[in-house]
C-alpha cells in the first residue's frame, strides 16, 4: 500500500532524513519507534506531503502510484490521513464545519463527535485552547469523518490522561478495523496504519504487525514491534545504534 524508497529529505537545507526505506502493506499496522529528534514526525509529514519538507532523493509510492510530487490535498483524496501531534490553531474555523467538509458532507458531525465525547467542542475554533488530549480526540474526529485508507498517527497517546487513553486507543482500533468481521480478515479488509509511539501504550489496543526503528534520520532496523518495544524499554536506543554499526 505504502512504499518508501531511499527517501532523503531536507528542511531549510538541513538533511533530516536520509535513505529511508519502509513499507506498510494493505491492512497492516506498522509502528515507528525512535528517540526524540530522530525524524519520525518529519517522515510522517513528508509522506502526507507538507511543503516545508523538500525531497531531494527517493520516492513515495501509494497503491503503486508515485505520489512523491503530489500536493497534500491530492494525497488526502487518494486515501492518506494524518493525525498531527501539534496541529496549528485554526481561529475562526469551527470543528463542526471542518468535520463536515472532511466527510464531504456525508456524515453527521454530532454522531461522530458523540463517540469521542467531543460534542461540546463542535462549535469551538479548531485546536484553539485545546488540551493535549482534546487535540488527539479532535484529530481522530476529523479522521473518522475523512475515512482514509492509510492512517498516519503521530504519537496518538502523548498528552492523553489515563482515562482518555482507552477512548483514544479503542477509537483507533475501531477506525482501523472498520468492516472487519473476524480477526482473520484484518489484513484483507482492514485499514492500514503507520503509528509513531514512544510509550507503546497504543499497542495495548491495536495489533501491530511490524516495527521500524528510526535513528539519526534513517531506519536502523525492522522487526516484531512488541519485541522491539521490549528491547527499547530494557536497553534504550543506544544498543540499536551500536547494533547497526556492527553490521
Amino acid at each position, binding site marked *: 500500500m505504502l512504499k518508501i524508497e531511499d527517501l532523503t529529505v531536507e528542511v531549510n537545507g538541513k538533511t533530516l532524513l536520509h535513505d529511508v526505506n519502509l513499507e506498510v502493506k494493505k491492512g497492516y499496522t506498522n509502528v515507528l519507534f525512535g528517540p526524540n529528534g530522530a525524524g519520525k514526525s518529519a517522515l510522517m509529514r513528508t509522506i*502526507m*506531503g*507538507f*511543503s*516545508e519538507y523538500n525531497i531531494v532523493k527517493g520516492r513515495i509510492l501509494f497503491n503503486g502510484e508515485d505520489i512523491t510530487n503530489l*500536493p*497534500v*490535498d491530492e*494525497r*488526502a*483524496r487518494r486515501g492518506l*490521513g*494524518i493525525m*498531527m501531534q501539534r*496541529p*496549528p490553531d*485554526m*481561529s*475562526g*474555523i469551527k470543528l463542526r*464545519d*471542518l468535520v463536515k*467538509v*472532511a466527510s*464531504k458532507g456525508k456524515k453527521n458531525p454530532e454522531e461522530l463527535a458523540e463517540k469521542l465525547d467531543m460534542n461540546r467542542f463542535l462549535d469551538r*475554533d479548531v485546536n484553539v485552547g485545546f488540551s493535549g488530549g482534546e487535540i488527539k480526540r479532535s484529530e481522530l474526529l*476529523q479522521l473518522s*469523518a*475523512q475515512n482514509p485508507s492509510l492512517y498516519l498517527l503521530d504519537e496518538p497517546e502523548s498528552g492523553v490522561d489515563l482515562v482518555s487513553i482507552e477512548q483514544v486507543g479503542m477509537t483507533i482500533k475501531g477506525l482501523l478495523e472498520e468492516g472487519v468481521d473476524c480477526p482473520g480478515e484484518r489484513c484483507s479488509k482492514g485499514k492500514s496504519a503507520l503509528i509513531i509511539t514512544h510509550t507503546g501504550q497504543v499497542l495495548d489496543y491495536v495489533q501491530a504487525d511490524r516495527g521500524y526503528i528510526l535513528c539519526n534520520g534513517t531506519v536502523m532496523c525492522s522487526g516484531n514491534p512488541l519485541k522491539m518495544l521490549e528491547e527499547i524499554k530494557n536497553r534504550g536506543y543506544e544498543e540499536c545504534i551500536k547494533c547497526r554499526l556492527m553490521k
Partner: protein
Amino acid sequence: MQTDEVNLKKRAESAASKKAAFGEDFELDKFEKGSKVSKPIEDLETLDEESKKTLLHVGVVANEEGRSGSFLIMDNTVSHSSLKNKDVELMSTHKALEKYEWLKDYSWKLVQVDADKYTAKTYLEDADGYFIRMPAGKRSSLPVQTCLMLDSKKVSQTVHNIIIVEEGASLDIITGCTSRKGVEEGLHMGISEMYVKKGATLNFTMIHNWAEQIGVRPRTVIHVEEGGTYVSNYICLKPVRSVQTYPTVRLEGKGAITRLNTIAIAHPGSELDLGSRAIFNAPGTKAELISRTITIGGRIVARGEMIANAKGSKGHLECKGLVLTDKGSQLAIPILEANVDDVELTHEAAVGKIAKDQVEYLMARGLSEEEAVGMIVRGFLDVGIRGIPDELKKEIEETITQTAFGT
C-alpha cells in the same frame, strides 16, 4: 440666533478648510451640494429592482420583513420614513429638533463642529439625518434599518444623525451606506451622535458599499452611561476610493461596556483608514476593539486607541490583517494609554499572509488549496455578527470567496 448657535457657527466657519488628521484631503468645492429637494417614496417595495438590490447589499430589505422601522436618505433629503414598532421613535433630525426643545442638548454635543472641514460643512449646511430614540425600558427584538444613499453623480452628501437609547432600553440598528448604481464619484460626510443611557444597550451595524471614486468621512461619537452597552459592527467589503473614520466611544458610567468589530477588504485603489477608540472615564468600564482586515491590493490603516482614565478599566485591542497580494499594504497602529493605576489594557496586532501550515492542515483533510484559503479567510472575518439578512450573508460569503480565489 442664540449665543450657542452663534458660537458653533463661528467655530464651524473657522474650520471650513481644516484638514482632517488622517486620510486623503478632499476639496469640498469639487463636489456639487447634494439636492435638498425631497423625492418621497411611500413604500420601499415600489422601488425598481436595481435600487432594491442596492439597498439589500447594505442590509436594508425593501419589504421591511424582520425590521421594526425603515428610513432612507437620498443625497441630502429624507425620502422615506416608516415604523412598524410604535415603541421606537424614528423621524428626521430636523423634525425631531422642532418637536423636542431638549434635543438641542444632544445635538453637536459629542461631535465637535470644528473637528475638521467635514464636520464644519455638515454643520454649516444644517444637514438633516435620522433621529432614533428608544424610550426607557423598551426593547425591540427587530432592528431599525436606515439607508444613506448617494443618489446623484459628483455630489457631496452631509448627514447628521442622533440616536438615544433611554434607561434600560435596548435597540438594534442596521445602517447601510451606499451609492446608486452609476454614481461612481462623490463625497459622503456623516455625523452620528449616539447616547446609550444607564443600563441600556445599542447594537449598531453599519455596512458600506460604495463605488470606486467615492470619498467617505463618517464622524461618530458614542456616549455610554452606567451599565450601558454599545456594540458596533462595521463592514466594508467593496471597492471605494477612501474611507477615513475613527469612531470614539466614551465610557462615562460605571461598568459601561463596548465592543467594536471592524471587518474590511481593501481592493486595488482603495484606501481604508479605519480606527476605533475607547475612552474609559468611569471605574470598571470595559472595551474590546476588534479589527479584521484583508488587502487584495489596497491600503489599510487599522488604528485602535484605548485611553484609560479610571481605575478598574479593562480593554483589549486586536488588529489582525491579511495581505493577499504584493501590491496591497496593511498598517496596524495600536495605541494604549493608561493615566491611572489598576487598569488592564492589552493589544494584539498581526499583519501578514495566510499561514501555509493552516492551509496545508485543511488540505490534509481533503480540501483543495482554494477551498482551504476560502475557509481560512471566512473564519478570519467571522467575528460573530448577528442580524445580517441571509441574502447579504450570502453576498458577503461570495465576496470573501472571490477575494480568496483571486489570490
